């Protein structure tokens, strides 16, 4: 069957109104070309205009009464697309007011650029992996080496630090966290003893509740709860503070005053966190065991004297040393992660919020991973 050829002229209508008439190589615009007509005009025009022999299209604007920015851009779009097909476009006959608007809105340069070519899936994946490795893994290791270098060397150069800042940070990170750490550890110790008491009573092994509470709190729960709380509380504060300082150019100002932002801002936090974390863990352990002791008395009738006597038999110095080693690892992770994400901030206030959230999530994840690794090592 032969394909039916298009007959000219063809009308381009928006509703009942004709907005343009296409007659082979001339397009006569009519009435108005505003945001309402522009979409219909561009869609219908390219369906009508399929004449390969036409090398130049004249657009007659003499009967065009009104045009807005969308209309001008529609004409620009038509011109651009036809140019790509090798068809030249000439506009003519526009009234003074239409000319004014075309001059105002018609872009000087080709703003309708082609979208960037999307790379092939594997190439894209490779690019992202490389970016991740360089930005995060290498960046994190570089920051860690920088922080530990200054952290170690500045121990012997107290004059190089901001006076009073370590104490100030120790209060913010450590002292102010004591209450919440003690309270939650107490509750968790109580709940551990409570849940195990019914099982132990069944087997008549009431006294082993002491072993259970002391061992779980000392080796796992105490350090981990403390680290998660400090990561949530102080890790976010560190990330937010450093990010805000970067956004408001305070870090630039520190650098151009001849000071090292790492030593001036981050190292005091590292010292403060490493110094206070062991104390927090000890408080958490004491509170957790106290909570467990209370539950043991209430549910299993184990008096404090019995509890303490049994505790002395099973408690080992190794548990304490392990907790202290863990505390230093957790403190370093929390400060390092907070400062890493704080320093990576982009795009103002929105970036500060985003980086703070990421810093907390990552530092808690890293703390739990470190706990697993250290748990295996010290088993």
């Amino acid at each position, binding site marked *: 069957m032969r394909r039916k050829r298009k007959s000219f002229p063809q009308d381009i209508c928006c509703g009942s109104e004709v907005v343009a008439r296409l007659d082979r190589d001339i397009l006569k615009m009519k009435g108005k070309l505003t945001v309402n007509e522009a979409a219909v005009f561009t869609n219908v025009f390219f369906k009508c205009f399929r004449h390969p022999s036409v090398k130049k299209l004249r657009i007659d604007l003499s009967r065009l009464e009104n045009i807005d920015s969308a209309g001008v851009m529609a004409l620009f779009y038509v011109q651009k697309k036809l140019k790509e097909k090798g068809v030249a476009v000439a506009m003519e006959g526009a009234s003074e007011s239409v000319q004014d608007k075309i001059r105002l809105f018609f872009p000087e340069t080709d703003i309708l650029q082609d979208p960037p070519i999307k790379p092939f899936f594997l190439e894209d994946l490779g690019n992202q992996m490389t970016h991740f490795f360089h930005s995060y893994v290498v960046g994190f290791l570089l920051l860690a080496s920088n922080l530990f270098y200054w952290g170690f060397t500045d121990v012997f150069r107290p004059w190089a630090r901001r006076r009073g800042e370590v104490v100030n940070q120790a209060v913010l990170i450590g002292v102010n966290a004591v209450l919440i750490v003690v309270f939650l550890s107490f509750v968790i110790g109580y709940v551990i003893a409570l849940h195990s008491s019914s099982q132990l009573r069944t087997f008549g092994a009431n006294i082993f509740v002491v072993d259970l509470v002391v061992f779980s709190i000392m080796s796992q729960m105490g350090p981990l709860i403390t680290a998660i709380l400090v990561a949530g509380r102080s890790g976010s504060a560190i990330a937010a503070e450093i990010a805000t300082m970067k956004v408001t*150019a305070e870090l630039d*100002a520190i650098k151009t005053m001849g000071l090292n932002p790492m030593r001036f801002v981050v190292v005091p936090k590292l010292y403060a966190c490493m110094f206070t974390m062991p104390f927090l863990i000890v408080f958490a352990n004491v509170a957790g065991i106290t909570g467990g002791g209370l539950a043991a008395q209430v549910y299993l009738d184990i008096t404090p004297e019995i509890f303490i006597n049994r505790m002395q038999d099973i408690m080992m110095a190794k548990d304490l040393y392990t907790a202290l080693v863990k505390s230093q690892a957790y403190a370093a992770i929390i400060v390092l992660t907070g400062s890493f994400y704080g320093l990576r901030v982009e795009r103002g206030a929105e970036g500060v919020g985003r980086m703070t959230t990421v810093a907390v999530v990552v530092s808690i994840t890293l703390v739990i991973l470190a706990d697993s690794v250290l748990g295996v090592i010290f088993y």
Partner: protein
Amino acid sequence: MEKEKVVEVRRLYAAFDDTVVLSDVSFSAYQGEVTVILGGSGSGKTTLLKHLLALYPVERGYVSVLGQDLARLREVEQVTLYLQMGVFYQSGALLNSLTVAENIALPLAQHSDLPKELIDEIVHMKLGLVNLSHAFHLYPSQLSGGMMKRAALARAIVMDPPLLFCDEPGAGLDPVLLESLDNLILNLKNKLGMSIIMVTHEVSSILRVADRIVFLDKGVVVLEGPLTKALHSEVPAVKEFFSVMKNENVRELLK
């Protein structure tokens, strides 16, 4: 006799990802002069300033500040260079955890052995220079925008640096404050022989303080020279910049 160059930039190129921000930028700033870097939004002024402050690494081209090649600067040399520079940031960049006095005293406290009482006296004097004596014990969050800028200027000049960088010092100031700030900058130049590199849009300020103009347009220096050359320039971007400012002072100077 030709003046000594305090800043020299040759064929500097800077790009972020695929966007070229500075392309083949070359200019010099001289001892004891106020050099104003001008240009529209997005012309690359801030990027250029950050290169001069060694906050961005020089990847292509040559940047020398006070005779030091920034690309070859070691960390110790960079600190020594920073001690000879004052930087006045557009936002003030005062440390929010410190009082105004502590902010201003910070470079002195960290880089000198001066006793605290003397540092406090110096801080009082510098605050007096910027009409901010009453803000000694206030925190940055308690200051207005104009006060914040003046405190930032006091901090920038606390070490009496031979070279001062100012990023939009007049933005957001009323005309009276702006004039007093300009007078202070002129005093720093005339009485202390300070060299000043300033990024600003305030035409009244430019006319009051500028000795040389470096005009950036789309990452390229389209004009470099004395203020009068800029005012008579036929370069379209420069001409447009000055023509839109219907300022009596411009006309007077043009006469």
